[in-house]
């Protein structure tokens, strides 16, 4: 069996593992990202390339060490650098004497069967139906993960005993990873949600609500963003992520086929501030900041890797959004030199500011009601 690997991105390894093994391949999930992964990637990658590429390279090297022979990844057509990751990583790994094959899945140019032909080379015995079945299982898992994480982020700030939700989360991830049939997935999914709802909480009406947005990899991968969701949750802040893996796949793969103007809602929201497509998640970052202000969120945290071009354009625009719509925004830039303490300090300061602001607003409101 061909040993296939892929890069980590948050919990996406769970659906990927299912997808590949259902297709009769042997998935080699890279070991969890550690300092060693990052160091391995740094050695190979160019200095100013974005951080996700460096971590990906580290993932690949560690996966090759555990026997991977082929790398599956997605492509793109720019202007964001992600579209050229595959080419650059192939050159880098081959030069560093890692004889590994690359399968870069590009958006088909002529007909969608082009994509299947490409995959077919690796799974000669399978039919298109098998791919759909495999994709269905993977999709269900991805969807379950999204649902679970969404609810989890709302419960974590209220938990009575710190760490309970994280424990439930770890158990859920493991159970879902092991589930093999559609029925199992449904059961694990439902049981996970029930377990979350059963966690002892201390209800609190004045909990701070913030939106976490920015570049997809930085938002989704807890090992590079210093587990920002957990840290914020434990500080008693309700985090709403704007990027969920299943939804992102649904939008980029499915919606762009059947409804090409699905991005319009983002374009319209961002238009007064950023009226041009800049690649990556630039427009979404601005659009969700506007949305956060409209929906009375208390703050916005933007995550971006160092030298990320789309996020830099958004970052230049965000102060104006923040001023005009009166929503505090914190931009956190992360690369291999970022340290947990540094990020944590900034988060704490930001949350303090939000708390004070919230408290003052409430006090003003009460004063207004009392005095008319």
């Amino acid at each position: 069996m061909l040993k296939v690997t892929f890069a980590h991105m948050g919990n996406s390894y769970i659906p990927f593992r299912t997808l590949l093994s259902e297709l009769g391949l042997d998935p080699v999930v890279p070991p969890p990202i550690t300092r060693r992964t990052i160091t391995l990637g740094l050695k190979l990658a160019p200095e100013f390339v974005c951080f996700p590429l460096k971590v990906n390279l580290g993932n690949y090297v560690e996966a090759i060490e555990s026997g991977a022979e082929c790398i599956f990844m997605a492509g793109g057509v720019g202007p964001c650098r992600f579209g050229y990751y595959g080419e650059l990583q192939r050159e880098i790994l081959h030069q560093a004497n890692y004889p590994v094959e690359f399968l870069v899945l590009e958006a088909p140019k002529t007909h969608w069967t082009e994509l299947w032909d490409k995959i077919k080379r690796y799974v000669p015995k399978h039919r298109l139906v098998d791919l759909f079945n495999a994709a269905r299982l993977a999709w269900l898992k991805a969807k379950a993960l999204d649902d679970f994480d969404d609810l989890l982020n709302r419960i974590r700030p209220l938990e009575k005993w710190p760490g309970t939700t994280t424990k439930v989360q770890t158990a859920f991830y493991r159970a879902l990873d092991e589930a093999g049939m559609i029925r199992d997935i449904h059961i694990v999914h439902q049981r996970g949600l029930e377990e979350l709802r059963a966690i002892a909480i201390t209800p609190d009406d004045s909990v701070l609500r913030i939106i976490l947005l920015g570049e997809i990899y930085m938002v989704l991968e807890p090992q590079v963003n210093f587990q920002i969701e957990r840290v914020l949750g434990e500080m008693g802040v309700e985090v709403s992520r704007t990027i969920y893996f299943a939804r992102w796949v649904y939008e980029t793969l499915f919606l762009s086929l059947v409804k090409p103007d699905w991005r319009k809602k983002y374009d319209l929201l961002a238009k007064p501030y950023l009226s041009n497509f800049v690649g990556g998640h630039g427009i979404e970052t601005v659009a969700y900041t506007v949305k956060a202000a409209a929906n009375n969120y208390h703050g916005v945290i933007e995550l971006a890797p160092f030298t990320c071009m789309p996020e830099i354009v958004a970052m230049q625009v965000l102060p104006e959004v923040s001023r005009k719509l009166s929503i505090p925004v914190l931009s956190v830039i992360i690369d291999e030199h970022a340290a947990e303490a540094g990020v944590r300090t900034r988060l704490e300061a930001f949350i303090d500011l939000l708390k004070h602001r919230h408290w003052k607003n409430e006090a003003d409101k009460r004063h207004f009601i009392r005095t008319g």
Partner: protein
Amino acid sequence: MKIGIPRGLLYYWYGHLWEEFWQECGCETVVSASTDHQIMLSGIKVALDELCLPMKIFIGHIKWLAPVTDLIMIPHLIKIEKDAYICPKFMGLPDLVRHTLPALRNQFLVVKVGPKNIDMIQCLRSAASRKGIKTPSKNNLVDSSKQTGNSPALTICNTYRNSLPGNESTLTIGLLGHPYCLYDAGFNLNFLQILTENQINFLTPEMIPPEFQGVGSGKLNKKMFWTLGRSQLDSLDWMLRDSGVKVDGFIHLTPFACGLEAIIGDMMERRIKAAGKPFLRLNLEEHSGEAGIITRLEAFISLLQYRERVPKKVPC
């Protein structure tokens, strides 16, 4: 009406076209002064730290033009060729300058090129009509087919190369980088001047004959979707194989933390090393000092001279 053209970014490719167009329209054109410390500082002051230095310099040029012109042209170049962007920052340029310099908003004359219509003259026309500037009939206008004969980039190249004392120069260096890095003396701290003073001949990407365009980038497995990447890979291939001059070494001038150059530079470095040529990369930013550049350049030149003298192949 006075129209200001900032001497930054792709002015070095299209400056002559822009100037001619606006003059044909009966407008007076003012090109901002060459980048100096003052211009750079005024840009740095207002721009976001994360922006690259060429963008900050561009903003500095806009500020220089603001008091002396009625309108300032913002070239919003999304695409200048099919299937290739320039850079996300170019794509968001009008938004960038609008938010950095909110007071000058009404003075901006945005010329949007792409993503559908990539004909420079047609785009200039529609930008002019949007501002109520009359454009002359078609025949009078410059042809938009790429007449790079007298583009600012080549003019600068020729001035420096003409001042080289003919045969005495023995070394030729291939210069790689974006046009606004190679030709902006304020950005690269008079790099071309230093080269000519050391009697070193140089080739730049803009000197590539049209028949070699698309050759180097065509050798890639995947089509590159950045214009400035394509042009550099084309010219690298040309310099390595077909330029008719033996290129002794390569220097890559890049802005600090440039997103594209991180990828393109790495690919070029690999190709140059495979060809067995020495390679020097200079990252420039607002804190760069001339002395640092000179020291590294001198060391690089000594290396080239040594390789020239010693017939055996010196590893690089």
